[in-house]
Structure formats: structure tokens, C-alpha cells
């Protein structure tokens, strides 16, 4: 993770305090990570009001569930961002909304099948994850990243990558399994 260990320690300390219902710690936690969380939700949903709602919901959940965090669930920041990401995906499905400002991006992917996906997506993650993503085929990597960052359904991916839905499904499935084999090495 790009955050330093000391930052993760800070977040851990804040989470522990939050699990003891320390409201001040909760506010500090919000100040520390809400920017990253909102950025993630916004990227996923491409809708400000939905992203705002997701961040709100995620922090309400964090307040109630801070005590359930444990190290098996990843670094504290990942855990909290995961909560926000799931919440965003839920809201997107409830509203059956499709990304709006993401359309330009979508066309670009469709036009440049072999071209690089948005650089910020490409370089995302730690060295380990990045290295493993690089070992995947372009199509596998693109389908995984589009699912992760944009919350695309199989249908949407099939459209975006101009490929049959069965093919897209198989890119994701095989890509994920190859990723796992690599991450476990």
C-alpha cells in the first residue's frame, strides 16, 4: 500500500479508539481518509450525489463495526475503502445507474483495444499487485480494472470491449485466477 506503515499505525489507533466510541477519533479518521474514500467512490460511480451517499453510509458502518476489524482483513485503509466500495456498488445497482462521465473513457477503451488503459489505473497498486497485473493479457487486465474502478457489469464490459459476454466473463475469471497464482508466488 502506498501509505506508510506509520500512517497505517495511526489509522489502526484511530480505529481502536472508534471501536470504543471515541467521537473525536472518529472525526480525525474522517479527516484523514474521507478524501481518498470520496475519490474512490466518485471514480466508481461517476455521480457526485451517489458518491457522497456512499461515503456517508460507509462511515456510519465504520462507526458501528470498527471493533470487527482485524488484521486478516488487510490494512486498515483497505478495509475502510472496501466498505465504501461495496456500498457504492450497492447504490449503483439499486439505482440501476450507469456511469455518465465515464462514457468518454469507455469509448477510448473500445477504440483502442490494444492501447493502454488510463495510466492512473495501470500504475495503481503496490509493486506486487502491479507486477502481477502486468503479467496478465491486456484484455484480462482491462476487464478486471474496469470492473474494479467502474463497477461495470458483464454486459457493460461486453459493450465497452466490443466482445461477446462469454468471452468477457472468461477474461475476468481467468485473469483473476492468474492474478491469484502470481500473488501467491
Amino acid at each position: 500500500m502506498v501509505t506508510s506503515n506509520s500512517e497505517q499505525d495511526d489509522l489502526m489507533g484511530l480505529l481502536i479508539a472508534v471501536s470504543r466510541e471515541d467521537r473525536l477519533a472518529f472525526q480525525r479518521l474522517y479527516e484523514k481518509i474521507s478524501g481518498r474514500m470520496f475519490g474512490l467512490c466518485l471514480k466508481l460511480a461517476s455521480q457526485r450525489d451517489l458518491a457522497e451517499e456512499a461515503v456517508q453510509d460507509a462511515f456510519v458502518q465504520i462507526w458501528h463495526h470498527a471493533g470487527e476489524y482485524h488484521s486478516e482483513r488487510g490494512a486498515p485503509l483497505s478495509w475502510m475503502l472496501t466498505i465504501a466500495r461495496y456500498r457504492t456498488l450497492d447504490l449503483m445497482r439499486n439505482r440501476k445507474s450507469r456511469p455518465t462521465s465515464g462514457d468518454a473513457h469507455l469509448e477510448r477503451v473500445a477504440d483502442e483495444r490494444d492501447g493502454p488503459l488510463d495510466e492512473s489505473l495501470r500504475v495503481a497498486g503496490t509493486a506486487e499487485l502491479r507486477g502481477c497485473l502486468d503479467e496478465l493479457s491486456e484484455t484480462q487486465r482491462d476487464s478486471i480494472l474496469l470492473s474494479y474502478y467502474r463497477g461495470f457489469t458483464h454486459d457493460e464490459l461486453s459493450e465497452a470491449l466490443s466482445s461477446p459476454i462469454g468471452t468477457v466473463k472468461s477474461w475476468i475469471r481467468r485473469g483473476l485466477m492468474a492474478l491469484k497464482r502470481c500473488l501467491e508466488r
Partner: protein
Amino acid sequence: MKKTPERIEALAAEYVLGSLHGAARRRFERWMMESVRVRQEVWFWEEKLGHLGARIEEEQPPASVWAGIERRLWPQTGNAVSAEAANDASGRWFWPGWSMLATAAALVLAVILVQQPEPEMDDRLSGAIVQADVSDPLWLVSESSLDRQLKLRPVAATAAQQGKDYELWIVPADGQPLSLGVIPVGGTYQVTLDDEARALLSNSRTLAISLEPVGGSPTGQPTGPILHVAKLYEL
């Protein structure tokens, strides 16, 4: 669908990625409730793919977001509590968000083998509600088809925080949870199951406990956090 290691592996990855939808997603969420192995697989991916989230450009949310959080968590201390805010605070979205249940991190399921009485035509379900950091089970659960009684016996359970009650639910395989009432403090809680409740329970064998306002959920559905989920076993 059987929970083979290959399926668990493939579905957990797609679950975390978000590409698992609809009925398949709900079925997988049930798997997560049932199996530590499945949850661990999900955590693996949450941890790995979580790195993707950390590299996104930051953007500060508007101040109204924090104000909304405070209003929902502490409506009594807020300046203005609108009806909408109160409505939001009902946590109506909470229950479908099974993903958080997966977090039931603290949760370990245990089978308590109870001395079997003389053989008779009696189907019994049994189990325990336990918490990882407490050595004794919080409650022992037993259910008998003969007398239609479900019993919840406190062992290490403590009273809910002030102003709150624990509420017991049957979590059906499909659909909304069914309340079995507020669990009183101290003493064995005994509830008679009607036909509907029995059918739901013998099918899903899953109970949950949520934290509710005193007197139980005002909406008939869980409004507070789900504290425990337990699977019962047939004896």
C-alpha cells in the same frame, strides 16, 4: 451448487471485484455467512485488490457529508433533525448489505453437542452464538420440533448497552428476516415457533442478533448493526 474449493476461489474473486451479480451474489453472501473458509478467501481479495483503491486521486467531499454522518449517528445532539435524516438513520439499507456480515469477523461458529435424549421422533437443532475474543459462548441455542420451543440460554452474554436491546431473528434462505422478539437480560429466553417460523428455521437454520432501540426494532426489520449470525446444526 456445491462449495468446491475451485468455486469458492473463483466466486470470491468475482464477489470482491463486483462482477458477481443478482442471485449469484446473494447466494455467495450466504456462503460467506456459513463458512470461515469462504470469508478468508474474500478477505484475501479485499486485501489484495484494496491496493487499487489507495492510488486514486483524492477529492474532498463537501462539508454536508460529514454533517450528514453526525446527524445519522447522533440525531439527538444535532441542531436540526429533519424527518429525512431520521429516516436515513433507520439503516434500511443495512440488512441487504450482507457484505458487512461477512465482516462478522468476530464470529466463529461452534457446534455444541448436547446429550441426546432417548430416541423419539424429534428433530433438534442446536448451536451457539460465540464471539472470537470471549472464551465461553455468549448464548447456547436449542430448538426442538416436538415442543416447538426455541431456547436461548445466556452463558457469557452481557446486557446490551444503555438504551438498547438485543433482538433475535430467523434469517431465511430468501427474503426478509423474521423477528423472534427482544432477548431479555438474564435467564433463558424461550419462544414458541409457529408453523411459518419453524419452516423458515428448519430451512435456513440461521439466526441473527441485532442491536435495536429499547423494545425492539420499530420497523419490524433489523435497523441496528447485526452483531452475531449463527448457524444451527441438526442433532
